[in-house]
């Protein structure tokens, strides 16, 4: 092992190459790209305004102008599913980003400094880990309201412990490596060592966890929406499922299509995360 070549560091190009060779990760990536395109192009893709009601309630899928049918208020289900991708993607990305930032900060400080700081931060992390996430999210959202910003914040704040523990373990390992010692000897300040020296070297597994976090955040947002705690001023997949509850027998399409959309989005990020994990794990790497 060369002195200044950290073991876990894998070049971006190499990871990409690995990912490309993996069908699962690639499929996940393709699904994410499609989801992102749908979200970005929603105004052009959606055949109707998602909030537009009409007297044509409960039209079945395949009706003229309503490929996936209409709901109890005559709103187009396809347009709802298309616009719902925006909420899922925004909440998923922003919440996972929030969780990752908090996780990195806590994990890095904890792992780099160790000792009492580590002890305290890890107990706090454990506290967050043992709290049932969904129940707490329900309570917080019910209490503070369910705007998009609140949803992102709540889901983000409840999702960071895994990242924190991962980053901590990486820092614990790296802080004794020669390149960190070298940085110390050169008189670098801890903040700089943490962010400039170590962090880039441990980012790969963090990104894996982040992509799995996105999937979890999408699922949590949909669950909150299903319980009627989504943002009431946006069309979201969870919210669509919520209103569909009373019409499962009468209009199955109201629940099936948003349900399928949630499953596909979650599956996409999970596949991508798994693929990324395999691609960055040197033990699983073949042919190098």
């Amino acid at each position, binding site marked *: 092992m060369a002195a200044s070549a950290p073991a876990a560091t894998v070049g971006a190009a190499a990871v990409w190459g690995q990912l490309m060779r993996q069908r699962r990760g690639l499929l996940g990536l393709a699904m994410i790209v499609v989801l992102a395109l749908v979200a970005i192009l929603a105004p052009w893709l959606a055949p109707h305004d998602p*909030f*537009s*009601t009409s*007297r044509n*309630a409960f039209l079945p899928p395949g009706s003229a102008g309503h490929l996936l049918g209409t709901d*109890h*208020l*005559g*709103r187009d289900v396809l347009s709802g599913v298309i616009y719902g991708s925006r909420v899922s993607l925004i909440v998923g990305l922003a919440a996972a980003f929030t969780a990752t930032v908090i996780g990195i900060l806590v994990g890095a400080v904890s792992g780099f400094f160790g000792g009492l700081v580590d002890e305290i931060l890890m107990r706090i992390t454990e506290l967050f880990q043992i709290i049932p996430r969904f129940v707490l999210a329900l309570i917080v959202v*019910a209490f503070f*309201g369910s705007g998009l910003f609140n949803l992102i914040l709540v889901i983000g704040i409840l999702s960071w412990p895994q990242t924190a523990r991962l980053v901590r373990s990486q820092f614990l390992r790296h802080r004794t490596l020669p390149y960190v010692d070298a940085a110390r000897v050169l008189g670098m300040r801890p903040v700089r060592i943490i962010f400039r020296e170590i962090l880039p070297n441990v980012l790969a597994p963090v990104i894996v966890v982040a992509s799995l976090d996105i999937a979890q955040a999408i699922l949590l947002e949909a669950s909150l929406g299903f319980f*009627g705690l989504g943002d*009431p*001023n946006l069309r979201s997949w969870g919210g669509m499922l919520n*209103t569909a509850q*009373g019409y499962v027998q009468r209009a199955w399409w109201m629940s099936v299509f948003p349900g399928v959309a949630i499953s596909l989005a979650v599956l996409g990020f999970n596949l991508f995360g798994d693929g990324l994990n395999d691609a960055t794990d040197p033990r699983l790497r073949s042919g190098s």
Partner: protein
Amino acid sequence: MRTPLVLLALTLAWLFGHALAQAETPTPGGTAIVVLGSDPEHLNAAISTGYPIGAVGASLYSALVYLDRDGVPRGELAESWTVSDDDRVYTFTLRPATFHDGTPVTSADVVFTMEEVLAPNHGRFLNAYRNIASITAPDDATVVIELTQPYAPLINLLTVFEAPILPKHVFEGTDPLTNPANEAPIGSGPFRFVEWVRGERVTLERFEDYFLDNALLDRLIYRVVPQDAARSVALEVGEADVVWGFYMPPADLDRLDANPNIEVWKGLTIPSLYFVFVNTDNPALDDVRVRQALMFAIDREQIVEQAQGGLGEVAGGPFGAGFAYAYDEATDYRTLYPFDPERARELLAEAGVGDLTLTFVYDSARGAFAAAAEIMRDNLRQVGITLNVQPVERSVMVERVYGRDYDLSMQSFTSSGDPAIGYHRIYLSAERGANFVNATGYANAEVDELLNAAAGLADRDARAAAYTEVLAILANDVPTLAIFDELSTQAAAANLRGLLVRFDQRDGLEYAWLAP
């Protein structure tokens, strides 16, 4: 030659059969089973306003008056009554009647029940009692109620649901809350108590000495079915004959309607109004043109059809269309404010309002409100108003709406059978500040005066005249956006006839009979 004869015979047979069906005469006998959603806590309707207690009580007890199908008070125990010229003294003459234990019903029983049992224990009777100066019995067959001030809803608060008459000799000197007769009641109604199996059923039988026409059914069983879905099923398999709307899972109505053995009924009984409060603290909403624009912009028919599943009637005015004397065709909202986004846009432009964003607060537990909010969001968007929908839990809704921290809020108020009891509070300026009253900030001295006058007029025609004036003012000012009157529902076995003869569907089961 044969075919025409056969046809003739068939036609005659059909005509004959049809004539028979037309002339169906009620036949006595049989047992009917009515569904209750929960076991009554006791069977004393004079100390509780609970729905199941009132249900059983309606058959067990009698009262001075009942409300007919149209809500008009008619004499029950009271053969007749007179009202003094100043509308303050009501004199009732009683019919000869007997309790189920054989003792006669006298004016002493009426006075005792009202003063000793109803006034301290019955939430709604208290409404009337506040206006009562004295209740006296000059002789055995006369009851005199003297009011402190004229109070028109008095008669409506003397029905079996508000003032059932108890036997004085059973209750005198006891605590009415713990009297054993609460479990084995003695009334003077068309059915007498037989048995109560807690949590399962209450069985009544025809009282042969009822003071009016005897009930037709031999037995009436109130069966307790706590699960929503099980009630519809009980009806479908013939284990129950009547399910009232109060206990009806709405989602099952269509299925029951399609069943030839079940008759589903949808109609207006005790009007309950769904409307939107408009907070006039918001400067834009203080402008009457903006409020009128909201009326034009909201598609109330779509709300009834989709948010309420058709179980409603677009409201004809601030008191709905359920009270003939508090409704005026000339100010019917359906003709004054048809769905007309173009007109709404004009009014908003006149008022100089552009790009308005309004918060819409409602109780998140009410599914119909959520659906109505989505329709209104779409409606108002068409006229340039953005709706910021805020579903909140009930306690927060009450705090925000009555604390005037909202722009629009959907509500439903029940009339309790008289607009003076249920709806006046929404418009009276003196009622501002408390919960479940005037939350719009609307204050109009003329409206105050007219409403208070209307509440004091016992004569329906005089009352109607007062309301006509109020209706005209409110139709112009629209401090609340009346959306729809809720329709009650009932599903019953098709062979059970003679239902829905009274204002409240729980009442009048003595007229029910089983067709062979």
